[in-house]
């Protein structure tokens, strides 16, 4: 069996509330899967089910080919890292790493060897004799990862591990987790609400909403071909522009503007007529010299400018709606300027107005 973790027809109910509904998911060996969604979407709940910390209502969970649906968390061959670190505060770092192993009655030298290895990998050797209170947030989270590491398991579960850290540390530790995955080649399941973490870390992302997986795919697919309007709006910052209009044949009409959709890769083979939403990412709008090559061009007036250093986000009115586009940070624009923008339909997304599904 090539899959490391398999989730089959999983349901979870708290009383009358259905938290997870008929969920199926297969995670390959060595894969880094990110569960992404806003709070309350069921992503952490799913992770807790995989860990065995929550009893499922129906369905099965397999880890490494074993049906572990009824198994205790410690018997499932998983290690878990929590948002609050959940270190044992009265024990030293070494105590934290060894407590579970001692309890499992592992030989002393084996414990020492595992701690040494984990400490080396995570570079926490100088901290082993300290207590968690004497560590910084980043160091604590490293120890928490170490506690999962010493368990010598194939599947790592991360429950929003970086959410309690400040922005800079979060970026640093993100890279380290990625490096850890590259070195260890373990299966990792990672829950987050931060799309940057998801995009940078994942082999595949599962976007969740209302207890269901909306889209499962590589970061590229999720970003480039979002399956519905929700996913399209959720991924990307600043978020995608949506124009409400009408699709007739190969032309998308919004107000008095007609945008030719030639070159757009329709999901179901051909164009469909009817009310539709056109989604264009701000970074896919071209300006300046590049406009000449764009299949569609228009003039807009600049309403608001948000310089962000590396690039500048410009707000304007286009086809009767608020429209944002991203320009190079060097571009010199001022409020009131008229600029010419260009759109490439092949990089845009079209959604049905009613079902919000990708066309």
């Amino acid at each position: 069996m090539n899959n490391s973790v398999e989730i089959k027809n999983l349901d979870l109910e708290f009383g009358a509330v259905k938290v997870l509904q008929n969920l199926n998911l297969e995670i390959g060996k060595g894969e880094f899967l990110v569960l992404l969604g806003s709070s309350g979407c069921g992503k952490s709940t799913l992770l807790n089910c995989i860990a065995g910390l929550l009893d499922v209502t129906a369905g099965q969970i397999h880890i490494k080919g074993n049906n572990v649906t009824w198994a205790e968390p410690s018997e499932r061959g998983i290690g878990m890292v929590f948002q609050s670190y959940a270190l044992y505060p009265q024990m030293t770092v070494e105590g934290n790493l060894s407590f579970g192993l001692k309890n499992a009655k592992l030989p002393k030298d084996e414990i020492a060897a595992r701690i040494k290895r984990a400490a080396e990998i995570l570079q926490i050797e100088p901290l082993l004799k300290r207590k968690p209170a004497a560590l910084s947030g980043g160091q604590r989270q490293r120890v928490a990862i170490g506690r999962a590491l010493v368990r010598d398991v194939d599947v790592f579960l991360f429950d929003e591990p970086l959410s309690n850290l400040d922005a800079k540390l979060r970026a640093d530790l993100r890279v380290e987790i990625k490096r850890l995955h590259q070195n260890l080649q373990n299966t990792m399941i990672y829950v987050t609400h931060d799309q940057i973490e998801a995009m940078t870390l994942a082999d595949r992302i599962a976007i969740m909403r209302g207890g269901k997986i909306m889209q499962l795919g590589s970061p590229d697919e999720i970003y480039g071909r979002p399956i519905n309007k929700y996913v399209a709006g959720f991924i990307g910052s600043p978020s995608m522009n949506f124009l409400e209009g009408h699709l007739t044949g190969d032309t998308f009409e919004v107000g008095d503007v007609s945008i030719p959709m030639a070159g757009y890769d329709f999901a179901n083979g051909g164009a469909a007529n009817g009310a539709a939403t056109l989604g264009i990412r701000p970074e896919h709008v071209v300006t300046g010299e590049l406009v000449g090559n764009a299949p569609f061009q228009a003039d807009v007036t600049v309403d608001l400018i948000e310089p962000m250093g590396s690039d500048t986000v410009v707000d304007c009115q286009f086809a009767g709606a608020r429209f944002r586009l991203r320009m190079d940070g060097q571009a010199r624009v001022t409020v009131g300027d008229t600029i010419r923008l260009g759109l490439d339909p092949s990089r845009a997304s079209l959604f049905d107005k009613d079902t919000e599904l990708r066309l």
Partner: protein
Amino acid sequence: MVDVTPDALAGPQGPKPRKTFSRRNIFLYGTLIMVALYYALPLYVMIITSMKGMPEIRLGNVFSPPVEITFAPWVKAWSEACTGLTCEGLSTGFWNSVRITIPSVIASIAIASVNGYALANWKFKGADAFFTILIFGAFIPYQVMLYPIVIMLREMGLYGSLSGLVIVHTIFGMPILTLLFRNYFTSLPEELFKAARVDGAGFWGIYFRIMLPMSVPIFTVAVILQVTGIWNDFLFGVVYTRPESYPMTVALNNIVNSTQGVKEYNVNMAATIITGLVPLTIYFVSGKLFVRGIAAGAVKG
């Protein structure tokens, strides 16, 4: 996504089977039921004893339910039971307790809430020092301050009077209540206070128009805390009042432990339960707020 039909699932699936009568549950609920019975027993004994006649008490045991229910002991406890000196039952004590409790609760809460507000929002030099003394004062055994207060009250001409006892309750309620209110007012957003100051409101204006309306829950907690505490007080009652103004707890003790005459256990238990009725009612009605009060009293500032 592959949709697997339910038949395709073999082996364990769904929730882990648990027996309702697992050993863990039998132990857990068994223990809790035993414990609950132990705690409930005295209340049960009080009630049934107070409803038996004396002959029945002499024949039976304390746990057997009454054969013939009678309310005569309640009537006697309320209006006729003897304390050794007089025979007017608990009613005098009850009304004394009411006359002590109401002004004490109002005075102590009014003073402590303004105090807590001043400490939280209008810090002045030395305020924290006085507050620290006050909090440490809460730990000083009352016995140490009993006599100095006797002298103070005597100087003021209030020794033995109900108003003297009201002052004593106000003083000893101050540490915990001030802490309670200070912590509560500190937890309110400071911007609110600043905005009111910018709008030109003064010390009392902010207190009455902004703080008070936002503090109904904490005032409720304080009232519960004080009513039960003051109603249940025995020591201050016996030290600072005269027999004619004894509060209910002292009257109860004098009735039950008076050495004269035959012991009427049913009357004694009726008197006991009548005395406990006020705090018990508050407790059962207020529930969570009562718990919040004692937790607030216990948690450090």
